[in-house]
């Protein structure tokens, strides 16, 4: 049956004294693909940051439970090790830290959590090569500094690589499709589809339905002014494309929340 992985109830969030999320409800079930769409400033990215535990956001009301645990009591890294992955819209640069070193570090950290053995660098590099080729990432990139001087597409592919290595229970991908050419977009979509086949939950935060033609979500949620205002299927994305957010949000549609 369908198990609930992430359950958000009546979530209110402030940042710098400003209310950003205003009574948001959202449930994510195991193995589902959910898309969250909405106009700029509706709070989509904030939602992803709050789930990951960014310290600049204050939860003033509501609950988030993750696999039955109170997520709000957990630190950022505890959440990550417990299987929550956030794919960043703008991955952060860390000069001097080589990608392969970083990847092995985070891979082993997650392995420990999963009760698996840490791997030596030889075994890791073998595994890395396999995944790297699937994602079309070149070898010379591995010795470069993390995210430093990368193109938008390279950064997004690297986020995908990290997601696959970390084997998360749920991955929230913030604008995973922005800045990608069509080939890269297909690669990202197929990576997402593979995750789905392994019963991982995926939440896509996106502006456009471009990505959604390659990976069809089970549900589409529309966010406005800090809450989910409509939930539907693929049709909702088509309507958005035709009519724009304003009309769709206001129109009473059957099948909404």
């Amino acid at each position, binding site marked *: 049956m369908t198990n609930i992985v992430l359950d958000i109830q009546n979530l209110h969030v402030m940042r710098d004294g400003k209310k950003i999320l205003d009574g948001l409800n959202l449930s994510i079930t195991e193995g589902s693909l959910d898309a969250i769409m909405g106009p700029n400033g509706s709070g989509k990215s904030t939602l992803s940051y709050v789930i990951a535990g960014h310290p600049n956001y204050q939860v003033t009301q509501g609950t988030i439970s993750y696999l039955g645990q109170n997520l709000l009591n957990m630190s950022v890294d505890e959440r*990550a090790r417990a299987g929550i992955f956030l794919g960043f819209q703008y991955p952060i640069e860390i000069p001097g830290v080589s990608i392969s070193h970083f990847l092995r*570090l*985070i891979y082993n*950290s997650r392995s420990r959590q999963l009760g698996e053995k840490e791997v030596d660098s030889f075994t890791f590099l073998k595994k890395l090569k396999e995944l790297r080729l699937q994602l079309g990432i070149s070898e010379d990139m591995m010795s470069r500094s993390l995210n430093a001087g990368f193109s938008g597409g390279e950064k997004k592919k690297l986020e995908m690589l990290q997601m696959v290595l970390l084997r998360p229970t749920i991955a929230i991908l913030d604008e995973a499709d922005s800045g990608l050419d069509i080939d890269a977009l297909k690669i990202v979509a197929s990576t997402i589809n593979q995750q789905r086949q392994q019963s991982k939950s995926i939440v896509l935060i996106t502006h456009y339905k471009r990505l959604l033609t390659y990976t069809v979500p089970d549900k589409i949620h529309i966010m406005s002014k800090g809450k989910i205002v409509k939930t539907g299927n693929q049709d909702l994305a088509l309507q958005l494309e035709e009519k724009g957010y304003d009309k769709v949000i206001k129109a009473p549609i059957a099948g909404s929340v």
Partner: protein
Amino acid sequence: MKSATNPQKEMEKQHKNPVENLIAEKYKYGFVTDIDSDIAPKGLNEDIVRFISAKKNEPSWLLSWRLKAFRLWQTMSEPSWAKLNYAKIDYQDAHYYAAPKVKPDIKSLDQIDPKIRQTYDKLGIPLHEQQQLAGVAVDAVFDSVSVATTFREELAKAGVIFCSISEAVQKYSEIVQKYLGTVVPYSDNFYATLNSAVFTDGSFVYIPPGVRCPMELSTYFRINAAKTGQFERTLIVADRNSYVSYLEGCTAPMRDEHQLHAAVVELVALDEAEIKYSTVQNWYPGDEQGRGGIYNFVTKRGACRGFRSKISWTQVETGSAITWKYPSCILQGDESVGKFYSIALTNHFQQADTGTKMIHLGKKTRSTIISKGISAGKAQNTYRGLVRIQPGADQARNFTQCDSLLIGNMCGAHTIPYIENRNKQSYTEHEATTSKISEEQLFYCQQRGLSAEDAVSLIVNGFCRQVLQELPMEFAVEAQKLLGISLEGSVG
């Protein structure tokens, strides 16, 4: 503990802590004889200087050199130009001589500050090494002596001289006399002059012409190196076309009851010789409130005396409450090369004023300065450097890069570069950056499952990469761990 009467208890104790028992046993046999008298009375005067020289059975040239230094020192005053703040040092309130095998006041590691022990464990230092570092009396118990002997034999085969400077004064007096004080004269500065008057021991290295030293030299392997004292004096001479890599210190925190350290290191590289000098300094930095800690006033200088001589200084400075240190190169020989790679990390209330001097005298001399300063807590970190190109140094070049990294809002980073170019054919480049570990970098790393401390350590290591890669491999790995440990408690 001294007299174990119950054999069963004795067994248990041995099981629990063999070293402690071994030492207790030695006490039973009166192993430690009456050597207390080998400590000079407190205070500093000419008699003390004579006492030190006599104890070491030194030749008269050295005594008169010491006395000249002492007389000059009495007329000098402590420099105050550094950006350092500390209570005045009472130079009369210290012992200036203690025999190397001072009575051990530590019988086992259990008597060491648990924090230092934790650090040993985190660095993965083997137990017997921990004991040696902590000053536990374990003479001749473990095989370190035989290791050192093998080591010495191999060096002897290559013709390399590596011994304590006291031994060198006895055995190789003419070489010592030829070079001692020629790079750092006894009149150099307040601390170097003090050191010249009262130095008790240190290392001496001589590499004969054409010899590539077959191994990295480290004080760890020098016999009786356990306690060189607070006024260490090191002299390294690389003769024509030779090469040596020397490692000073170790990554483990040194237990030391002396607060003031004033070492002098002199390097001499002749034609086409190369000296690589690496330091990891991790003396006690004081506690989180800034109480205690070592004051480290060091004079290190290398002379590239010949054609294409090369000297490189690589330092990782994470210890000491006060660091005052400017390893320098005098580029006399044409086409000689000087390099300075530095990581200075200060946390809590530590203060560091460190940098280098590159003095270009010869034609086509080149120097490179890469300095990475990291400040956390309420620490102050200053890079102070001088690049001087003299009129005769045609086509000399210098490249300087000073980067500062701040962790938190209470610390400070300062960059004070002096550039004096007196030759129109020569040029210098200077780059400086100051950055902070951003919240977003931390968040990104933590989101991938790394703890806040691991994340900081990773970011700092990335920042220091250029310098770390200059260290010998094994040293670099330990230095990386050390950077992480030194920053503990710097993130909330």
